[in-house]
């Protein structure tokens, strides 16, 4: 992995504005970036975006032999992948410290906290159990991968449904989704990680962006011990599931306490959001509505042009408000000068569309074609 070089002026600037009570993107210390969860067409796939950080999670299952020491429990396996797509400093197919760190943290948070009922994944004791595999793929890296990855893991696990099985004597029949309704995974509680960047040993910043993260960890490398990243895992009942500190040692006892308090509220809202989106998604699926990632990609594509959040922003600067003003102005202009579109967007194959020239809607095309014929 190539190192990311931070210039001295970036470091000192970030430290200064944070000590003055501001943040680069205009947030308050406790504000998180915008969180959105979207589900894919299959069960157990979702894309979670936290600001510009974006992670894809996919759960899959297969029948395997259980471990010897736990003959009646299923297996949960978490795999994190970071490719050059996330950020140019990563190399393809190479395990870095960051992937190992993320993997271990997620395992701690979901396996060791026993939030999944692994015993319900058992089919035949000592012979056949379900093995759940969570694949985490980082699509874009803009800081706070841990929080985003943990939300993605949790949402995909809660959304996932495994096929139903029936046992007849020695045989085990795995039913397809069409034959029998699939079974959802049983989750006892919903743990979520949240990250805090510690600056000058008493300022806690939630949901740090990439530059804030790098400034805060680069501090500690130079022996100037006052920064670090604190990861707090908590479930909706405000029970602590995970505590991890990377970077410097903290000697301010107050910090961990403040972080857990702030994480408790945050985790509650995140879990509520996950539950709500899953229920909404279920309702849509029952109505047989088409759900896939195609929708978010096209809608985000439009949004990325109008740029809802800027990486450098004043506290009171409201892009949306301005956009609204501009939009109303635009709409008026557009209405005057709008001419009928020459093309129709027609659905052809599933999940694709093609442009077709409208017939009759535009007289211009026909005239031009006639004139060509005359020639």
């Amino acid at each position: 992995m190539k190192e990311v070089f931070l210039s001295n002026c970036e470091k000192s600037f970030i430290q200064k504005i944070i000590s003055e009570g501001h943040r680069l993107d205009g947030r308050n210390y406790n504000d998180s970036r915008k969180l959105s969860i979207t589900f894919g067409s299959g069960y157990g796939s979702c894309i979670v975006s936290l600001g510009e950080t974006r992670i894809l999670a996919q759960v899959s299952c297969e029948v395997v032999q259980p471990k010897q020491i736990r003959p009646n429990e299923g297996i949960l396996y978490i795999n994190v992948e970071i490719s050059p797509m996330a950020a140019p400093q990563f190399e393809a197919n190479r395990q870095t410290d960051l992937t190992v760190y993320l993997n271990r943290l997620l395992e701690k948070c979901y396996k060791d906290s026993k939030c999944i009922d692994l015993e319900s994944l058992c089919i035949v004791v000592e012979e056949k159990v379900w093995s759940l595999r969570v694949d985490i793929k980082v699509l874009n890296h803009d800081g706070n991968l841990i929080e985003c990855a943990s939300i993605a893991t949790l949402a995909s696990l809660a959304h996932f449904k495994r096929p139903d099985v029936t046992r007849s004597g020695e045989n085990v029949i795995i039913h397809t989704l069409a034959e029998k309704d699939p079974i959802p995974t049983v989750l006892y509680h919903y743990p979520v990680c949240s990250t805090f960047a510690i600056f000058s040993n008493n300022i806690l910043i939630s949901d740090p962006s990439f530059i804030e993260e790098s400034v805060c960890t680069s501090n500690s490398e130079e022996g100037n011990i006052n920064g670090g990243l604190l990861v707090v895992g908590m479930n909706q009942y405000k029970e602590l599931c995970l505590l991890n500190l990377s970077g410097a040692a903290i000697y301010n006892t107050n910090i961990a306490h403040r972080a857990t308090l702030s994480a408790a509220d945050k985790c509650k809202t995140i879990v509520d959001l996950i539950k709500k989106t899953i229920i909404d998604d279920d309702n849509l699926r029952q109505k047989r509505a088409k759900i896939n990632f195609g929708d978010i990609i096209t809608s985000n594509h439009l949004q990325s042009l109008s740029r809802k959040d800027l990486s450098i922003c004043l506290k009171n600067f409201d892009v949306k408000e301005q956009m609204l003003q501009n939009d109303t102005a635009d709409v008026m202009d557009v209405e005057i000068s709008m001419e009928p579109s020459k093309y129709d967007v027609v659905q052809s194959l599933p999940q694709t569309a093609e442009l077709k020239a409208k017939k009759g809607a535009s007289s211009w095309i026909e005239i031009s074609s006639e004139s060509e014929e005359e020639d």
Partner: protein
Amino acid sequence: MKISIGDVVLPGDYCEEISQVAEKSKVIIGPGLRKEVDRVYITKPGVLKKRNPGTFWVDSYQKRYVPSRGENVIGVVVQKAGDIFRVEIGGSITAALSYLSFEGATKKNRPEVQVGDVVYAKMLVASKDMEPELVCVDSHGKKGRLGVLSDGFVFKCSLNLIRKILNPNCPLLETLKNEWPFEVAAGMNGRIWIKANSMRETIAVGNAILGAEYLNDEEIRSMCNNIAAILAGHVS
């Protein structure tokens, strides 16, 4: 489908118009175009542009910098290696900057450059098979505006935004300069260095520059006024 100037083009398309012009006179094909046997193919998605008499190029959205000679760039010094500094400019490899290419620098009188400093430099050598080379002086040995940038803040943006704000017709800096004092250096490699009297003003400059990316001239003016009002405290 026939491709004409101003169309949105995709890699693999070819433009017959360029070949037709080329039969009569000399043509210069710029970024995003490539001559293959007897056709001119497009290699980047974007908008096909032309400047008379015969210059064609594709205007595409891009963040990755490809060094080209004579451009002013902003880089971060990442290493001191003997006679040269290695400067990270956002390209595929780092660029070299000799310590003698500063104003008044001699073997005995070395310039004061530390690892982690931000430099504003001119691209001297940018060949596709060689390490790019930077200088901080012009041909008369004067530094002009080049050199080490101290304090302030550096941020990254798309290459299109740099070209947009450096365009003499762009109202952004014209409008901003009347509102409050600041310094700005824009590198063609998608980095902008800004410095103002206070932190808040510096952020405001950055905000205005990044916000201008997808706005037209009129919207940019209104946004600048809006930011100036926020800065002055008129808007809560």
